[in-house]
C-alpha cells in the first residue's frame, strides 16, 4: 500500500475494523454480553477455573515458602519437580510431616491441608463452628468447613475437588467434541449421496480396519491392556490409534494404483448418513448412565481418567447431531459449490470452509455437555463407582454425609459446589443459545 496516501490507508483500516465489528462472532459476543446472568456465570466460571488451576496454592499441607535450618525452600514448587521426576525430597522432609516441622520462617497457603491430610486431633466430624482441637503453636489452621470421619479437611477436599470437576468437564467434552465433530461432519457433509468411492477402496479400507482391530486387540491385546491397566491410558490408546491410522493409510495408498483396473475402480455411493445415524441411534438407545456404569464396572483399577474418557466417549451424539444438521444446510450453499469447483479436496472443504461456519451451535452443546459431564462424575463418586477410594471429589464428600446425619456441612457445601458449577454452565449454554438464535436477535 505504499503508493496510497495516508488518508486512503486510514479509510481502508477503518473499513476493515468496521467489517470486523459487524462480523458474525462480534455480533454473537455483543448479544451474549447483553445477557447479564450469562456474563456473571462466565465470571464465576473464571473464578472456579482459577481455583482449579491454583488449587495447590490454596489448600496444601506444604508451605509456599519456608526457612528451615537456615535454608530457604519453596516446597509447593519443589513438589512439581518431584512429580515429574527432576528432583527428590531431602530426608528431613520425608521423615517429619510438613505441618509438624519447626520452621524459622514460614508462609502457608490459606488452607493448611491437602485433600488427603489427616488431622488426628480433629477427626470424627468436627463442625466448622464447633470446637476444634489444636496444639499450642501448631502450624495447623482452622478447618473452615469442618472435617469428616478420618479428619480430612472438607475445605481442602472441595478445593481439590474443583480441579477434578473442571478436568472432567474439559477432558470429557474435548473427547466428545472430537468424536462428535468427526461423525457429524462426515454424515452431514457427505449425506447419503455425495461420497462416491471406488470398490477397491471400500474393500481395502474394511479389510484394513479389521486387520487393525486384530493387531491392536488380539495380537497386542494383552500388551495394550496391561498398559491401560497400569494407568498409561494415553499410550495404550495411542498404540491402538497408530495401528488404525497406519493400516488405513496403507489401504488408501494401495487403492490408488489398483483403482485403475476398471472393475475395481467402479465408483459406489456410500450412504454415510444412514450408517452414522444408525450408530447414533444405537448409542442413544441405552440410558447413558447405565451404559457408563456398565463400562466402568469392567475396569479393575478405578481412576478418574477412565471416568473422563468413558463419559466423553458416550456423550458425543448430541454434538454430532448438531454438526450434522448444520452441515446438511451448509453443504448446499454456493460458496461450498465454488470451493468444489476450484477442485479443493473434500477434507479441505470440510475442515477449512464448512466446519468453521458450523461451530457456533456446537458451543451450546459443549456448554450443556460440560454441565452434564460434571454432574455425571459427581454422581458416580457419590454412589462410589469408578473413582478410587482415596480420591476426594465433591461427590465423595457429599456421600460421606449419609454416614453421619449431624454433619450438615458435608451435606451442604459439596452439593452446593456441584449445584453452582452445573448452574453456571447451564446459564452459559442458555446465554449462547439466545446469542446465536437469529430469531431472538433484536
Amino acid at each position: 500500500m505504499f503508493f496510497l496516501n495516508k488518508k486512503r490507508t486510514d479509510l481502508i483500516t477503518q473499513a476493515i475494523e468496521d467489517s470486523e465489528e459487524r462480523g458474525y462472532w462480534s455480533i454473537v459476543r455483543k448479544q451474549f454480553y447483553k445477557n447479564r446472568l450469562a456474563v456473571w456465570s462466565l465470571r464465576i466460571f473464571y473464578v472456579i477455573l482459577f481455583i482449579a488451576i491454583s488449587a495447590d496454592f490454596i489448600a496444601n499441607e506444604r508451605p509456599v515458602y519456608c526457612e528451615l535450618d537456615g535454608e530457604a525452600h519453596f516446597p509447593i514448587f519443589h513438589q512439581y519437580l518431584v512429580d515429574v521426576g527432576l528432583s527428590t525430597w531431602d530426608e528431613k522432609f520425608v521423615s517429619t510431616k510438613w505441618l509438624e516441622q519447626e520452621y524459622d520462617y514460614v508462609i502457608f497457603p490459606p488452607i493448611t491441608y491437602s485433600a488427603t491430610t489427616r488431622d488426628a486431633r480433629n477427626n470424627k466430624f468436627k463442625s466448622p463452628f464447633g470446637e476444634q482441637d489444636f496444639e499450642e503453636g501448631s502450624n495447623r489452621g482452622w478447618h473452615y468447613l469442618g472435617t469428616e470421619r478420618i479428619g480430612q479437611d472438607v475445605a481442602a477436599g472441595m478445593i481439590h475437588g474443583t480441579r477434578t470437576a473442571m478436568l472432567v468437564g474439559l477432558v470429557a467434552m474435548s473427547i466428545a467434541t472430537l468424536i462428535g465433530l468427526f461423525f457429524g461432519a462426515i454424515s452431514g457433509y457427505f449425506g447419503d449421496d455425495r461420497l462416491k468411492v471406488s470398490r477397491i477402496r471400500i474393500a481395502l479400507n474394511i479389510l484394513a480396519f479389521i486387520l487393525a482391530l486384530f493387531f491392536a486387540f488380539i495380537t497386542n491385546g494383552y500388551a495394550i491392556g496391561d498398559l491401560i491397566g497400569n494407568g498409561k491410558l494415553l499410550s495404550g490408546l495411542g498404540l491402538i490409534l497408530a495401528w488404525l491410522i497406519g493400516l488405513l493409510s496403507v489401504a488408501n495408498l494401495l487403492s490408488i494404483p489398483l483403482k485403475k483396473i476398471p472393475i475395481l475402480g467402479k465408483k459406489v455411493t456410500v450412504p454415510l448418513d444412514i450408517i452414522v445415524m444408525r450408530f447414533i441411534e444405537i448409542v442413544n438407545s441405552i440410558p447413558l448412565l447405565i451404559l457408563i456404569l456398565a463400562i466402568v464396572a469392567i475396569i479393575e483399577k478405578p481412576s478418574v481418567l477412565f471416568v473422563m474418557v468413558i463419559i466423553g466417549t458416550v456423550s458425543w451424539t448430541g454434538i454430532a447431531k448438531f454438526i450434522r444438521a448444520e452441515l446438511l444446510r451448509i453443504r448446499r450453499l454456493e460458496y461450498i459449490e465454488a470451493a468444489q469447483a476450484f477442485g479443493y479436496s473434500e477434507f479441505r472443504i470440510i475442515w477449512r470452509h464448512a466446519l468453521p461456519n458450523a461451530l457456533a451451535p456446537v458451543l451450546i452443546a459443549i456448554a450443556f455437555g460440560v454441565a452434564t459431564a460434571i454432574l455425571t462424575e459427581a454422581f458416580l463418586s457419590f454412589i462410589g463407582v469408578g473413582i478410587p477410594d482415596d480420591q476426594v471429589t465433591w461427590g465423595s464428600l457429599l456421600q460421606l454425609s449419609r454416614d453421619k446425619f449431624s454433619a450438615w456441612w458435608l451435606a451442604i457445601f459439596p452439593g452446593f459446589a456441584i449445584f453452582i458449577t452445573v448452574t453456571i454452565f447451564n446459564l452459559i449454554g442458555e446465554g449462547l443459545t439466545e446469542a446465536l438464535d437469529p430469531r431472538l436477535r433484536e
Partner: protein
Amino acid sequence: MFQYIIKRILIFIPTFFAISLLIFGLSKMAPGDPVLVVMGGNDSNGVGQRSDLVNGEKAYAQVAERLGLDKPSFYFLLTSAAYPTDLYKISKRNHRETISRLIDAYGNADAVMDYYQSLKAIYYKTADIENARYSVEGTARNCINDLFNEYEDGVIVFKLNLLKDSLETPNNGMETIQSDWNNLIDKYNYLKANPTRLKLYLPTIRWYGASTQYHTWMFGDYPWISTVDSSDHYRIENLSSEITALVPQKRSLNNSISKLRGRNYAIQEELDSARTNASPDSLRQVFATNEVQIEEYLEDQTNLQVSIDVLSSERDSLSENLVRYTGKGFLRGDFGRSYIDRKEVSIKLKDALYWTLIMNFFGILISYLISIPLGVKSAMWKLKGMKVIDNINTGVLFILYSLPSFWIGTILLVFFTTAEYSEMLDWFPTSGAQDLDLAEDPDTTLWMRFIDVAHHLALPIFCITYGSFAYLSRQMRGSMLGVIRQDYIRTARAKGLSERKVIWKHAFRNSLFPIITLFSSVFPRALSGSIAIELIYAIPGMGQLALMSIVTRDWPVVFTIVMFAAILTMIGNLIADILYAIVDPRVSFK
C-alpha cells in the same frame, strides 16, 4: 403411516442385536469368574486328596455347563493362528487366561499346552502323596497353584527353581514327582527356546456354529418346536426322592440290628458267666427270638439295598443320557438366573419394578399435571408483560432444573428424616419403601398400607419429580412463546376468537411438540434416573437393582435391564413419532 411403523420396527431388529452384542462383549471383557461367583467364591485350590480335586473340578465344570459357559463365546472368532481351536474347553477361567497369556508371549501353542498338561499331571500326583515332609509339601502346593496363574517369565522361573531346590533336599517324601518336575522345567525351557511369535500376526477366523454362549443367551438351547420329553427329568426326580426316602429306613434297620446284637452279646455274656438271677431258660428264649428278629431285619435290609441299587442304577443310566438345557434364551422370555442368589431374573425384575413403577407413575403424573398448565400460564405472563412474576417463575424453574437430585435427596434425608437437628423436623421415615411390620401384619387395612407407603415415598417421589417438572415447564413455556408469535394465532385473534379459545385450541395443541419428544425418554429415564434416589432412601427398586447388579457383575440381570431399557427407548421413540402425526396433521411419513 402403517408402512412407516413397520419400517421402524424392522429397523429396531438390527439395533436390538447391536446392543445385545455390546453388552455381551462388555460381560466377556469384565474381570472375575462368574462360575466362582455362583459357587460362592469357593475354589478347592490344591487342598485335599486327588478325589477331592477331581470332584472340585467336576463341580466347577458342572456349574459352567449349567450357566452355558462351557461353550465358545460367539459364532465365530477372529483370532491369531497361534491359538488352538478348542481353548474354550479348558473350563477354568484363570487357567485359560494363563494359557492364552503364555501363547501371546511365545506363540507356540503346542509347547504351552504340553507344559500346562504336565503341570496338571503333577498337580494330581502331588495330591496322592502321603507322609511327605510338611515344608516341602507346602512349597509344592504353593508353587503349583501359583504356576497355574503365572505368565511372567521371571516369576515362573523362580517358582520352578524354588520347588526344584526343595525337592532336592534329602528324605522329603516327595521323590516321586522329582523327575516329573525336572521334565516340566525342560518343557518350559523348550517353550522359551522355540517361540513362533510370527504366528501371532497371522489372522484366522474360526467358526463354532450355533452352540455358543451368545446364541444360548439370546435364543436358548432349548428346542424351538418339539417340546422336550421331560418324563426323564421327572423320573429322575422321583427316583431321587424314593432313594432319599429309603435310605433312612435302611439306617434305622441297621440301628435296630446293632442294638439287638448288642443285647444278645450281653445275654451271651450273662449265660457264659452263669452268674445271673434270671433263669437261663428265659434268657435263652429271649436270645432266640432276638436272633430270629435279626435274621428278619437282615433280610429286609438286603431287600432294601437291592431296591436302592435298582433305583440308583436306573437314575444313573437315565441321567447319563439326559440332555440338560441352559435355558430358552432372552428372546423366548427366559432371562436366566442371577449369578449372586440364583433367583430367576424375571422375578427379581418384577419385585424391583413394582416400586419404581409406583414412584415414577406418580412422579411423571404430577410433573405433567403441573408443568403443562404452568408452562402455558408463564408464557402468558411473559406476553402480558408481567415482568416480576415471570422473572421469579423462570428463575425458580431454572434453579430447580439445575439442582442435582442426589444433593436434594441427601439434604432432605439429613434434615427431615431424623430428630438430629430438631424434634420438629422428624417428619419422614429414614429409609425403605414401607414399614415391614405393617406390611406383614394381617390386620392392616389397605388404607393404612397406602398411608404408610405414601409416607415413605413422599420424599423420593419429590426428588425424582421436581427436576422433570421444571424441565417440562420450561420447555412448555418456550414452545408456547414460539407458537404464539405465529401468523395463524394473529389470524385467530383477528377473527375475534376469545383469548381462551386462541390459547387452548390454536396455540396449545401446536406447542405440545417438545413435550411429546420428551415423552419418548420418559421410560428409560424412569429406569435409570432413580438410581441415586433409590440408593439414598434404600428403596428396593429398579435403579438399585441395576446398580447392585452392575457392581457385583451379575451379568444376567445387567443384560436384561439394559436390553429392556433399550427396547423401551425404541418403543418410546416410535410412540413419540406416532403422537407427532396425531397432533400435527402436517407431519407425514412418506
